[in-house]
């Protein structure tokens, strides 16, 4: 019996454990297994194998019963996820249903989640920009939160490293505020996007429209073919999973790569309840897993543990990892675990029309979504009455439209012979929000979910800085559109709740000082060095860039450090 137990423990012991298989967990798995570590990846949802488990990927529009629309019964039952732009009939199966996974909203928060192997990397909007020196030095310069313990130079080689493998399309624009990367060819701006670029240049000088940088194989290299991926076919049906592996996801890229090393064990349906801390050893020894289906509890052991459960879930798990040494959550000596959570302000958009350049339209589809306007507010010094700034998307399109006014043979004729609309242009803001102590997540004292986890209480809100930024974006974009000769300008403040941006960050922030942060410059818990956090939870501030690329780079860098420390016998 005793032997059996020892054998059983042995069978449940790995070199490394990764909690989560999304964009950062997939990278952790790839890096750890490539470096020869036997790695267990725990995923709370079901397995999704590249291609095998993309049930809708090759469906034509008429093969969906409601032509893409989500039935009312589902929208009423799942109000939060129904607000997500990608929650449509073709990809509903990759989203978490609110009703099955409750949480407590102390303030309105739309928590968008994907519980399956690959997580939200199947669903993401694939926009990838590097942070710049201006972003990393932001908190120190402007006096909010704490100083980042790293600078651009620390991450630059790792950005290159992940870009080459993931495949990032982009143009080398030479902007200090948005460093160039190791790019595949860019998707070109169309005539009106390019016109707007020239207009901004002549009217402002320091405002730029660039080709949006995105995780698409515009022209694959050998490393992408080696992954079994092929050129993006501009289908723009990415949210269904791509049969070509044309965009980057854990499923098409990092996980199969990790599997090929022979060092990967992937365990779906594994809800991680907590990280186990051994007081005697003074480090974490493993994780406690509740089987999603049977509710059976099993412990797994490893020398190093990466917590990549998604920003808020990583907080959730660490808060729930209680020991005599850490009564308030693993590594939480500072009392700041779960605090200073922030997000991106996506509330505002501006639309307009343009009647010039009608000799051009576009054909086919642009997977990058068009243009990107990097942050131009308060870049080199404080210029406005709010802190930091916003980036913006910018796209221009002409539509094929049909005169639908008639009926009968005339209408049929019209429907089969569309004409071009004028140009419709649109922009949406992506504002940096300032992390604040009162924006936090915590464990509910009474309510538990079906797996015995205390429900997560979310208390995250906008502040005065966000309101000023929305007003400034609407004002500035209106001015820019006006100068460019666009007409019928309409501004919208959707007032959407935080969370719908799907860019929540923080709660387990990086910093120099254990008194004011949870993680050091290599994403190790200050107080428990063999536990690493490299997903959105680690972010000290939010900047304006879409964050996934930074998570990938931080993850690769942290694994490199972890393995070298392990070899030195420090973990």
């Amino acid at each position: 019996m005793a032997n059996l137990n020892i054998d059983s423990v042995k069978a449940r012991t790995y070199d490394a454990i990764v909690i989560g298989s999304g964009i950062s967990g997939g990278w952790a798995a790839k890096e750890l297994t490539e470096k020869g570590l036997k790695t267990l990846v725990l995923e709370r949802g079901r397995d999704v194998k590249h291609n095998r488990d993309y049930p809708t990927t090759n469906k034509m529009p008429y093969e969906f019963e409601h032509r893409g629309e989500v039935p009312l019964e589902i929208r009423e039952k799942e109000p939060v996820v129904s607000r997500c732009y990608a929650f449509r009939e073709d990809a509903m199966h990759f989203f978490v249903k609110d009703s099955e996974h409750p949480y407590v909203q102390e303030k309105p928060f739309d928590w968008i989640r994907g519980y399956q192997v690959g997580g939200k990397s199947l669903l993401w909007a694939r926009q990838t920009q590097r942070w710049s020196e201006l972003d990393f030095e932001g908190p120190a310069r402007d006096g909010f939160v704490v100083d980042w313990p790293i600078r651009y130079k620390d991450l630059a080689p790792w950005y290159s490293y992940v870009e080459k493998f993931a495949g990032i399309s982009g143009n080398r624009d030479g902007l200090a505020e948005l460093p160039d990367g190791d790019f595949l060819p860019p998707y070109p701006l169309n005539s009106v996007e390019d016109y707007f670029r020239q207009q901004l240049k002549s009217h402002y000088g320091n405002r730029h429209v660039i080709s949006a940088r995105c995780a698409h194989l515009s022209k694959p290299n050998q490393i992408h073919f080696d992954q079994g991926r092929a050129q993006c076919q501009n289908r723009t049906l990415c949210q269904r999973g791509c049969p070509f592996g044309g965009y980057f996801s854990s499923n098409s890229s990092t996980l199969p790569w990790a599997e090929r090393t022979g060092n990967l064990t992937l365990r779906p349906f594994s809800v991680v309840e907590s990280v186990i801390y051994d007081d005697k050893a003074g480090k974490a020894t493993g994780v406690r897993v509740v089987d999603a289906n049977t509710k059976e509890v099993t412990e797994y052991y490893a020398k190093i543990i990466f917590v990549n459960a998604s920003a808020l879930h990583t907080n959730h798990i660490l808060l729930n990892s209680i020991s005599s040494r850490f009564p308030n959550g693993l590594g939480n000596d500072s009392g700041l675990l779960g605090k200073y959570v922030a997000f991106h302000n996506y509330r505002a958009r501006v639309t307009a029309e343009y009647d010039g350049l009608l000799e051009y339209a576009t054909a086919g589809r642009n997977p990058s979504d068009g243009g990107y306007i990097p942050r131009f507010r308060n870049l080199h010094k404080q210029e406005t009455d709010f802190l930091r700034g916003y980036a913006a998307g910018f796209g221009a399109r002409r539509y094929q439209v049909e005169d639908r006014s008639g009926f009968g043979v005339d209408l049929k004729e019209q429907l089969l012979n569309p004409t071009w609309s004028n140009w419709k242009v649109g922009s949406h803001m992506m504002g940096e929000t300032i992390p604040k102590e009162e924006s936090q997540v915590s464990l509910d004292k009474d309510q538990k979910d079906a797996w015995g986890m205390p429900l997560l209480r979310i208390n995250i809100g906008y502040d005065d800085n966000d309101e000023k930024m929305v007003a400034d974006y609407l004002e500035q974009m209106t001015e820019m559109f006006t100068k460019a000769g666009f007409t019928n300008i309409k501004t919208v403040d959707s007032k959407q709740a935080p969370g719908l941006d799907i860019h929540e960050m923080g709660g387990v922030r990086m910093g120099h000082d254990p008194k004011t942060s949870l993680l050091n410059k290599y994403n190790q818990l200050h107080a428990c060095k063999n536990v690493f956090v490299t997903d959105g939870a680690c972010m000290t501030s939010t900047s304006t860039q879409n964050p996934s690329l930074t998570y990938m780079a931080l993850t690769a860098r942290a694994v490199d450090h972890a393995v070298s420390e392990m070899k030195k016998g420090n973990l």
Partner: protein
Amino acid sequence: MDRRSAVKGLLIFAGGVAVLPSCVLEEGKASIPLEHLDVSAQQEELLAEVVETILPATDTPGARDMGLHLFTLTMLDDCYSREDQQTFMSGMAAFAELTKEQTGKRFTKCSPEQRQQVMAGVNAGQAPQEVLTFYNILKGETIKGYLNSELVMTTLRVYELVPGRYEAYYPVTAEAQIS
């Protein structure tokens, strides 16, 4: 276990619309399973003739043969609010009434010319509000179903998928229709 779930297992997909083998159809009811709407076979026939008038058969199939009235009912049943469903049903009754007033006949018994006349008025907005609401839902879904049909997307206005492309400066010619 509602009736709809029970019968879903028996569905046959014809032209992208679920139809039921006749053996499980309720006598005098619609030919597709509906959860919220109570539609009679007679009302279904009326809808079939109205959509056929909106998009008639020419050298290509019309809305009736394409099942666009059934598509409309599916959309209405699954995606519209109870309020819209009720307005649609009472609007349909009012439309039938209006036809009778104008022609002395049921719409399904009208000559093609009479149907055109009735429809011209409604299409121009000359009808009570509930009739217009009914008509606008029916016309809107019929157009959506038509443009998103296999027939149109594979032969008439081809939906291009693979190999895809992106031409950022696409010169506009007289031929607007591109994939």
